[in-house]
């Protein structure tokens, strides 16, 4: 395989920033986005911490010049991130080549569906949200916002690996010559639906999440949207595009162990990482940094840690989870962490795994806990989800 698939743009909005540069500043200055929930009125507000995007919907609508209350928050944040990615890639006419849009989401417009569930019958003014329950509806609206016409547009929902899978599909479509350019990633806003769902699974922490710590108490939910622009070598050459990095490898596997839990030994995770290395034609020893899924649930971190030990044969490279900054942004996580992986490569820096104190009993693995400057060539990023979905992406530095 050649250099991989070129990444020419990226965009993000998360609890630690409204764009790529704000996110980077937060990552290197240790500014976390976790706090008490302010925008959703939930009975659990005193028992949970979340990674909320600071702008309320009316502010987001104003930024986007959208009419009030026509769109789910998932759409609003998705539009902001996708727009930044397209702008960064210097695209003036999005339909000038075969361009696609692939977005991952788990909740779609659930924030509005749950808000107006019983109101639709008496309130014609909120019925625009009825079709928003379709996960694909959010993707459609973001595609329209960036002006895509007569194009390949689809949505992937594989729980917390959705955006990683969207990135993977986009790369495969570029490589097989079906598209010249594709915008890929994911978006998920916070909702009572996910807060209560994760609450029933008893994997929400009541304090700041602590990935890979022996005392970890579970995850903090977060919300975010993040997209990359992938372009074919032909377009990059022809337009002399600035390449931010390359997607070298990708792997998808299923743990086939339990509907919501990972297997003790991380079979699915090992398979996904192995496949990604095969596609990248790389040895495990060539990975400089692992941006772990690291949700800080007892189950994930144990399973992922064991998978890393197996894959790297005990010699696990430096790794960290950035979820202590952002919370677990569900479908968007793979997109958020793809942006962070590229930022790591661009700046030769490993972002810290915050809140870590005590090594886990089960193995001898400690994440990087301080901002660390180090020349990086290759970064591996993991995303795992319900339904046994395991995905791995491998990024490399722009030449």
């Amino acid at each position, binding site marked *: 395989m050649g250099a991989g698939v070129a990444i020419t743009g990226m965009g993000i909005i998360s609890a630690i920033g409204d764009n790529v540069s704000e996110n980077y500043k937060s990552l290197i200055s240790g500014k976390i986005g976790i706090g008490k929930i302010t925008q959703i009125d939930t009975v659990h507000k005193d028992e949970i911490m979340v990674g909320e995007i600071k702008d309320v919907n009316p502010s987001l609508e104003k930024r986007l010049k959208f009419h009030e209350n026509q769109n789910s928050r998932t759409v609003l944040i998705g539009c902001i991130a996708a727009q930044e990615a397209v702008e960064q890639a210097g695209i003036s006419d999005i339909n000038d080549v075969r361009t696609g849009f692939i977005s991952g989401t788990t909740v779609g417009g659930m924030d509005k569906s749950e808000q107006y569930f019983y109101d639709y019958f008496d309130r014609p003014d909120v019925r625009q949200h009825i079709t928003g329950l379709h996960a694909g509806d959010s993707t459609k609206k973001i595609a329209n916002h960036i002006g895509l016409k007569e194009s390949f547009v*689809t949505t992937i929902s594989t729980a917390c690996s959705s955006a990683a899978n969207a990135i993977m599909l986009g790369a495969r479509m570029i490589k097989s010559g079906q598209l010249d350019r594709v915008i890929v990633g994911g978006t998920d806003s916070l909702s009572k639906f996910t807060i209560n769902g994760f609450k029933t699974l008893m994997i929400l922490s009541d304090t700041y999440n602590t990935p890979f710590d022996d005392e970890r108490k579970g995850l903090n939910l977060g919300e975010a949207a993040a997209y990359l622009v992938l372009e074919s070598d032909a377009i990059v050459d022809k337009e002399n595009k600035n390449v931010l990095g390359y997607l070298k490898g990708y792997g*998808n596997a*299923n743990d086939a162990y339990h509907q919501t839990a990972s297997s003790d030994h991380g079979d699915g995770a090992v398979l996904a990482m192995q496949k990604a290395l095969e596609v990248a034609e790389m040895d495990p020893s060539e990975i400089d940094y692992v941006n772990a899924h690291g949700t800080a649930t007892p189950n994930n971190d144990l399973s992922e840690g064991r998978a890393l030990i197996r894959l790297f044969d005990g010699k696990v490279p430096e790794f960290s989870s950035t979820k202590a900054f952002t919370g677990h942004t569900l479908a968007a996580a793979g997109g958020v962490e793809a942006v962070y992986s590229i930022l790591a490569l661009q700046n030769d820096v490993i972002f810290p795994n915050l809140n870590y104190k005590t090594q886990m009993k089960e193995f001898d693995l400690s994440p990087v806990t301080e901002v660390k400057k180090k020349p990086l060539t290759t970064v591996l990023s993991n995303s795992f989800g319900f339904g046994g979905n395991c995905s791995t992406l491998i990024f490399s530095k722009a030449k």
Partner: protein
Amino acid sequence: MTRPVYINGIGSVSAQKTFDNASFLEDITHHSDTVLNVISPDYKTHIPPAAARRMAKGIKMSMVSTKIALQEADLEENKIDAIIVGTGLGCIGDSEKFVMDIIDNNEQYLTPTRFIQSSHNTVAGQIALGMGCKGYNFTYVHSAISFESAILDAKMQLENKEADYILVGGVDELVNHHIDTHRLIGHIKQEPVETMAVLKSGTKGAIFSEGAHFFVLSSEKSPSCHVELVAVKTFNNLSKNQVSGKAQTFLEENNLTSDSIDLVILGYNGDIEFDDYYDELANGLFSNTAQVYYKHLCGEFDTASGFAFWLGNKIIRHQDIPEVLRLNSVEISEPKTILIYNQYRGENHSFTLLRKC
């Protein structure tokens, strides 16, 4: 040279009695309603009753549809190395109940089962779990092209040698709140329509339904295989006057012309606002080609085009076009090359090309 893609096994659970592959729409169930449920197969013969009780309907339908497809492909389930599912709404019955529980009980006394089953990828995950399949596992959720996205991905997997035996399908279940809200905005017809009168309803909206259509795809042709998947392409939006041009380009990309198409399967659903998209092809490019429709039989749902895909396979296999499907009387001696065109409310258009092999 990319590898060919064969359809080795097909399975359907729909509002018609399609779960028996030995027959082909010989016994049509006539409905007169605005919503249709599937004709349930005997779930007990396919799924242990204790397990079935806990399963969402979407999972049950998918399990049965999968078993039928595997049986026909004469393939052991452990040979499946990728599972790709398309679904508009997943197991939406559980999502609805979970939302109601949250609101009605003010976020108290909730149990995880409904939340877990409401994850869109629960069908693909459950099938993988049941088969112990650790391979590629994807779920597409994009309205009327959810199924086509899955098919397109499967085709790429096979062509690029990323997998060898793929289970691919589409599933959607129909539930109350969804019906009530979509009736409110006119997406579901207000008045019942008799099955054979759907095209002449003269009213807005469609007859909503549900179903599960699963297929075994491989580059290895099974002895019972009759059909090859040639191409599939989707568009997020098209105006009416673009449909013919896009169809023509799609055929050209596959070295075909409209003359090489023996039969077109059109997704007419009786909605006077949007059926004219199909008229573009029926009255233009393919006016002299045999035409069939099917949503009067299976209803409209996000993955209804899975029924069209199943239908194309059956027509080629049986070399027979049941009268009940006919839109015109153009005769064909041997249906070999079939074009499927689908869209929903003017969005999410798809062209799919099947060929006898």
